[in-house]
């Protein structure tokens, strides 16, 4: 983990990003042909990188418990499957989730900082974060103040992230940029650099509440920021695309991108996550197909 003293002035200028060039590069990742054992291995990695998520106003303890069970028992009929990486819930559900997944290796992640809008004063955001950590959250998914970012108050965004990082204590901090509201890839890149230099352990694309979310173009841009930071400092930062990745194919293309930009070292759930709710079942369906040769009805896979 990093031992840096955050200082806004230490952030190097962010390179410009050419959208057309990014689209072209991303299209190349999508022409990679992933077959046979690479496909099977890749799909299992995907399962193991999922942050199984429920973030709704209507969440109940019962629903969270069901999801936590699924996180540890993805499809018991098929032995040898990994668990997901974490469950991701609101702070009020952290204690429940923590109890359900204890000793399974599955982490509990909690959104905080007035998720999803982030429209609250810093004191509330810090309290929100501390509550989640004290309830047992291993990881905190915070949102940045997009309004402040868009009006050019980048140092405000930086200071806020640094403050939340401090409130996290030992919990790992994922910083959600909400790229759908930042609009341009230049903004995505700048926000990534700010988050990384302010102390993010992970940078994350979206809340899942705003479209577009984790497009490959956006994830690519953020991965390049991680790459540059690693080359500069030797410190690894994690990446979490969230929202909109619901098929195995898209998930595998994301892995291809991580592998080719950051290398195999990032291909573990310590450094790469998918924030998704419906992806797991599609991956399970594909894995079973590699075994049986046929697709099974979606009724055979539990919906939580």
């Amino acid at each position, binding site marked *: 983990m990093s031992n840096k003293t955050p200082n806004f002035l230490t952030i190097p200028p962010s*390179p*410009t*990003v*050419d959208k*057309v*060039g*990014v689209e*072209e*590069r991303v299209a190349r990742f999508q*022409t*990679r*042909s*992933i*077959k*046979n*054992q*690479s*496909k099977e*291995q*890749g799909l299992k*990695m995907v399962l193991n990188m999922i942050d199984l998520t429920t973030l709704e106003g209507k969440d109940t303890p019962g629903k969270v418990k069901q999801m936590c069970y699924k996180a540890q028992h993805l499809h018991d009929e098929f032995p040898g499957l990994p668990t997901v990486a974490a469950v991701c819930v609101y702070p009020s559900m952290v204690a429940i989730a923590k109890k359900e997944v204890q000793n399974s290796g599955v982490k509990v992640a909690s959104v905080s900082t007035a998720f999803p809008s982030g429209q609250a004063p810093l004191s509330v955001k810090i309290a929100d974060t501390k509550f989640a950590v004290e309830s047992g959250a291993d990881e905190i998914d915070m949102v940045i103040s997009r309004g402040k970012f868009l009006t050019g108050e980048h140092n405000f965004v930086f200071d806020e992230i640094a403050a939340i990082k401090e409130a996290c204590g030992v919990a790992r901090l994922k910083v959600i940029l909400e790229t759908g509201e930042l609009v341009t890839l230049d903004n995505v890149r700048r926000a990534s650099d700010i988050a990384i230099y302010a102390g993010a352990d992970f940078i994350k694309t979206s809340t899942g509440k705003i479209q577009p979310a984790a497009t490959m173009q956006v994830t690519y841009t953020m991965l*390049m920021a991680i790459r540059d930071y690693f*080359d500069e400092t030797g410190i*690894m930062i994690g990446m979490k695309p969230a929202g909109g990745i619901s098929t195995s194919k898209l998930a595998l293309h994301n*892995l291809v991108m991580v*592998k*080719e930009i950051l290398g*195999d*070292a990032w*291909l*573990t759930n*310590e*450094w790469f996550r998918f924030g998704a709710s419906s992806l797991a079942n599609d991956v399970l369906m594909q894995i079973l197909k590699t075994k049986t040769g046929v697709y099974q009805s979606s009724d055979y896979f539990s919906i939580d």
Partner: protein
Amino acid sequence: MAKDQTTWEYAPAPEGTGHIKLNKKYNLFIDGKWVAPSSKKYFETINPATEEVLAEIAYANEKDVDLAVKAARKAYTNVWSKMPASERAKYIYRIARLMQERAREFAVIESLDAGKTIRESRDIDVPLACNHFFYYAGWADKLEYAFPNRKVESLGVAGQIIPWNFPLLMAAWKIAPALATGNTVVLKPSETTSLTALKLAEIIEEAGLPHGVVNIVTGYGDTGAAIVNHPDVNKIAFTGSTAVGKMIQKAIAGTPKKATLELGGKSANIIFEDAPIDQAVEGIINGIFFNQGHVCCAGSRLFVQEGVAEKVIRKLKQRMDSLYVGNPMDKNTDIGAINSKKQLETIKKYIQIGLDEGAEMYQSTCELPSKGYYCAPTLFLDVAQSSVIAQEEIFGPVLTIQTFRTVDEVIQKANNSPYGLAAGVWTDKGSRIFNLTTKLKAGVVWANTYNKFDPTSPFGGYKESGFGREGGVHGLSGYVKLS
């Protein structure tokens, strides 16, 4: 770092070759028939990735070329020049559609014969070749709009000689505008890559094109010379080396033959400090390693502004290491095989010259297959403007890197070459792009991209990179007489 790091490798994903049909032996396509060469000689065409023989190809001599030109003349006089332009267009459209239907077969054969990756032949060469036929088919009955207030006439018989780097695409670049403007054709593909041109002949047969409108004669340089020197050829279209281009110009001096020559290049790719660096790095990679560097407009001279040089070079090396070099038929291969043993030797010779000149070399850390002709992606640092490797066309995956400080300096250095085919400019600043595009002496200048081709866009060179334009409305003028 993760302790027990797993690696995730891509399983082989070879494109199938079961669906293609290749003959053991190919004759010449003259006057709508497949005829044996009067020399009775055949030569082998091999797969440069495996060194296996793919087929035997007829070796045409002067007699065969004479037959082909006579057939083309007869077809021109009796049929093609008299046919209504809208009817000509239908034939060209038909060729385009038939090619499209058999795109996969063309892509596979192109990769087998030329060593280029299946990804490129499938996604670039073949679709572009089809599009050239579609595009020029559209012009056939609209020539008076291409040249307003002029009388447009065809020239007659066009002799066309094409290179081995984009065999099918170059055939399309040559044949499509010639047919659209009402000329007939004698085409000679390169001796190392005849197969897709011969496959195209099969399609021309299938399309029912009148006999003799397109003739394909295969062979070596002397076959090409016979076309150039034939007295009844009205126009020579050549794509290839500058040395041969000069020979052609000498040969046709004093004759009424028209010519368009698309020759070599040593194109500058210029990266400014404010460029989108990661996309520029992709552009450099694509500029020099596309088709193993066998590209006349390859961005083989890289100029990087001092402030970002270190970063760009570091990223370039990283990106080079992530390229998959190997079996061209694997869908995941980025860099395929060098087209021929001879070309590989040429490239190696230049790499040695670079080392002897004292430049610092970096090569991809990839493992090369033990069989076949391969060259690792290579770059040279600390290259001087006066270095041989920065002056001569290598036609392989070898990049030279120089740094610069000011705009004027880089314009001067970029233009300081006998060639002038293409250039690339990478900057976030629009005004700078326009400043450079007007001052760079190159037929094509790409801004924030490289190696982009489109049938609607003219292509051709300044200075020793040749003259005449191919593609777009400009591409018609090489095949018409205006009055």
